[in-house]
């Protein structure tokens, strides 16, 4: 096999994924194109969490790929992985040739398998919290949204000053300091890791890397060093960003190998290649290989445990096992349409912030304490600067996990995400005795109507919560200061509003102007 071509194909594909996924976060998916957001769904964690709602195909393909060739995902599809390769490559340009070299390092098994176990057990218990902080795709989403997209915004707005009539000013998105700092810190850690130790994050912290690594133990084809060809020149070792080639034993730790093909491509003796390695026990008779196969069977056991965890997590998901523990029941956060309930959101969202990027009104923000401590960074609505468009369902469409169920416009227009409450004593009509009606003006379902107010000539809002979907138009526009007279309260479980009445009226034909 020509590994040069394979490597080039890998690099090309990986760049396509990195660019498209990042672009999905920069360009509002709803406006420019929805093409990019498709790539968000070809990711490991999203396909796992969305397995019962369209993710199954991608999940099965990713698993098959791993069981055949190892961690192809990590080197080719994972945007964070590709980003790390770029960082390593870039920093190497400032190093002397000698300092560019990687060397073999022992695996940090206790750390990575502990993290994997915690993530797996949490997932079974219906808690995605570890993935919120550690999933590589979701964190690349946060980095794209908080750092890359904001940088693009500066450039975009600079251009809008130069071409004011053709390039619109991108009003600055809501800034959540916590989320920004998390993304920045995460990015810095990954940059430092990859600048000095290649794929250290992937092989020490990343739960997806650990899981796919264990799965790779079972894969049919593995990179193997041909002992008859190898002259221990160590060229492959110096190129291995996973630092997983041990020349002493002339073995490759396939649990850490990310299938980048660098070693295969660089070996002048063609000493490393993919080999069909599914051995039966009878093959391992030689005394010298006894210990090796013991280690191997230990690792296989671990791999099977990991698969077992995954299977249990899927089973738990299938029977919809609730979260084992819940944070304080006080809920103030309004979950985006399609979230079904805050519980469902917490069980499926890994805070990739695709919905936040997709919202044309910038009303979805990373949560701070609205959902409790286990809901930090999850998407939450705020009506301070805008409200949820009646004709828009972008957030639900873009979610690659199962966290936001895709809603048709018709369903979205009936999906109750919150419920308005009217505080008469705050209302301008009541306090100032003047006309207002701003809430009624914005209400898309006419849950709010204006009715005669006492003996005055004024009209006051009247609220029918059965019709209210919690879009927040009324709260956003209510001019009462400091407390709004219309406030949307969160619903822990989303409801379904009554269909707005048709208000049929007679079609009147006039022949006169009336004056």
């Amino acid at each position: 096999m020509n590994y040069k071509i394979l490597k080039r194909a890998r690099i090309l594909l990986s760049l396509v994924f990195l660019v498209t996924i990042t672009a999905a976060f920069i360009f509002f998916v709803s406006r420019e194109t929805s093409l990019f957001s498709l790539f968000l769904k070809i990711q490991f964690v999203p396909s796992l969490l969305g397995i019962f709602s369209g993710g199954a195909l991608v999940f099965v393909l990713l698993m098959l790929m791993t069981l055949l060739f190892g961690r192809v995902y990590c080197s080719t599809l994972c945007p964070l992985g590709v980003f790390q390769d770029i960082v390593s490559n870039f920093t190497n340009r400032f190093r002397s040739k000698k300092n560019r070299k990687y060397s073999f390092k022992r695996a940090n098994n206790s750390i990575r398998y502990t993290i994997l176990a915690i993530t797996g057990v949490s997932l079974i218990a219906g808690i995605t919290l570890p993935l919120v902080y550690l999933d590589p795709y979701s964190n690349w989403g946060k980095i794209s949204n908080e750092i890359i997209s904001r940088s693009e915004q500066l450039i975009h707005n600079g251009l809008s000053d130069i071409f004011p009539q053709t390039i619109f000013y991108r009003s600055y998105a809501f800034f959540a300091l916590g989320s920004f700092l998390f993304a920045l810190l995460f990015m810095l850690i990954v940059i430092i890791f990859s600048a000095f130790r290649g794929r250290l994050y992937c092989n020490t912290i990343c739960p997806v890397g650990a899981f796919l690594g264990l799965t790779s133990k079972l894969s049919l084809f593995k990179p193997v060093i041909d002992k008859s060809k190898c002259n221990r020149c160590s060229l492959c070792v110096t190129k291995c960003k996973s630092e997983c080639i041990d020349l002493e034993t002339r073995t490759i730790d396939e649990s850490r190998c990310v299938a980048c093909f660098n070693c295969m491509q660089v070996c002048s003796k063609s000493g490393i290649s993919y080999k069909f390695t599914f051995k039966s026990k009878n093959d391992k008779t030689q005394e010298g290989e006894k210990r090796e196969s013991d280690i191997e069977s230990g690792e296989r056991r671990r791999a099977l445990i990991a698969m077992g965890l995954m299977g249990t997590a899927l089973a738990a998901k299938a029977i919809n096992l609730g979260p084992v523990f819940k944070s304080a029941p006080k809920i103030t956060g309004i979950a985006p349409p399609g979230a079904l309930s805050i519980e469902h959101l917490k069980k499926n969202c890994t805070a990739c912030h695709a919905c936040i990027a997709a919202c044309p009104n910038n009303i979805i923000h990373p949560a701070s304490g609205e959902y409790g401590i286990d809901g930090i960074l999850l998407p939450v609505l705020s009506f301070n600067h805008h409200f949820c468009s009646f004709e828009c369902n972008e957030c639900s469409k873009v979610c690659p996990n199962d966290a936001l169920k895709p809603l048709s416009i018709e369903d979205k227009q009936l999906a109750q995400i919150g419920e308005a409450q009217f505080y008469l004593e705050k209302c301008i009509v009541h306090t100032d005795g003047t006309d207002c009606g701003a809430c009624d003006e914005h209400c898309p379902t006419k849950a709010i109507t204006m009715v005669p107010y006492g003996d005055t000539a004024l009209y006051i809002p009247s609220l029918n919560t059965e019709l209210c979907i919690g879009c927040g138009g009324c709260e956003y526009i209510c001019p009462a200061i400091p407390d709004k007279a219309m406030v949307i309260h969160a619903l822990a479980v989303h409801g379904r509003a009554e269909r707005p009445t048709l208000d049929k009226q007679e079609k009147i034909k006039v022949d006169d102007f009336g004056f």
Partner: protein
Amino acid sequence: MERRNFIKTAILGGLAGAVNLNGNNLFAAGKMSVSASNDLVAVMGGEPREMYKKGIAAMGGISKYVKKGQKVVIKPNIGWDKRPEFAANTNPDLIAEIVKDCFIAGASEVTVFDHTCDEWQSCYRNSGIESAAKAEGAKMAFAHDEKYYKRVTLPNGVRLKEVLIHEAIIDCDVWINVPVLKNHGGARMTIAMKNFMGIVWDRRFWHANDLQQCIADCATYTKMPVLNIVDAYRIMTQNGPKGKSIEDVQTPKALFISADIVAVDTAAVRFFNQFRQMTLEEVSHIGIAEKMKVGTTDIDKLKVERIRIG
């Protein structure tokens, strides 16, 4: 000849008005626009483009208002993410025809914008106004951020003394106000004066500080539109100004034009009253504006031409 014709029209028109007939039924169509100095023109029964053409001719033609080389702004109502048939926004065909006419009059550029309530790009797109205006060569101006607005003082304002107005209005030579006729839960009606809420940035202030007074206050702005063209091809008679369904819409196919914003609002309310009871007193910003000498509600004293098509 023209004067004689005019007097004839005026007398017959007055008689016709008294017996609730319309003057134009008594004349051949060709003699419709006998006078180029009408104060108010009302058109009924045609398609938007056709009604505009007849209406503007009766107002003396667009060249009376738009001069060669001028920068023109056309300000429709594009407040909502609704398609034209919902009557939440100004009719796109009407806007296109006005744009076209301004260019014929020699306008150097025509800009169309509104400070929308719903998300602006969807409003521009789904109202049909962006594509219609651009097809005739107009520019759509951005109006979704405070940065596009400039501070203006209103020395005659009672509650609204200072306001942020869109730079396109400030920078243009003339502007044309093209609202759509709708009922409104807060202001009762939204017509020409209420359409000024789309040239300002902070609408919330108006709602919080006596909406009706603020609407009138903003109409004391020194740079008033040279024409107010009220689109009543489709009108929203209930659940306005956003509307819920197509049921909220009546289709009277009418159009009103005047340089007097109070007069055109008065005419529109009286027209609307035929569909749903609405007194001028209820729409109190109209009366306040008259008191503030913005214009007159006494349209019976104005030179009004009524045109019927078909």
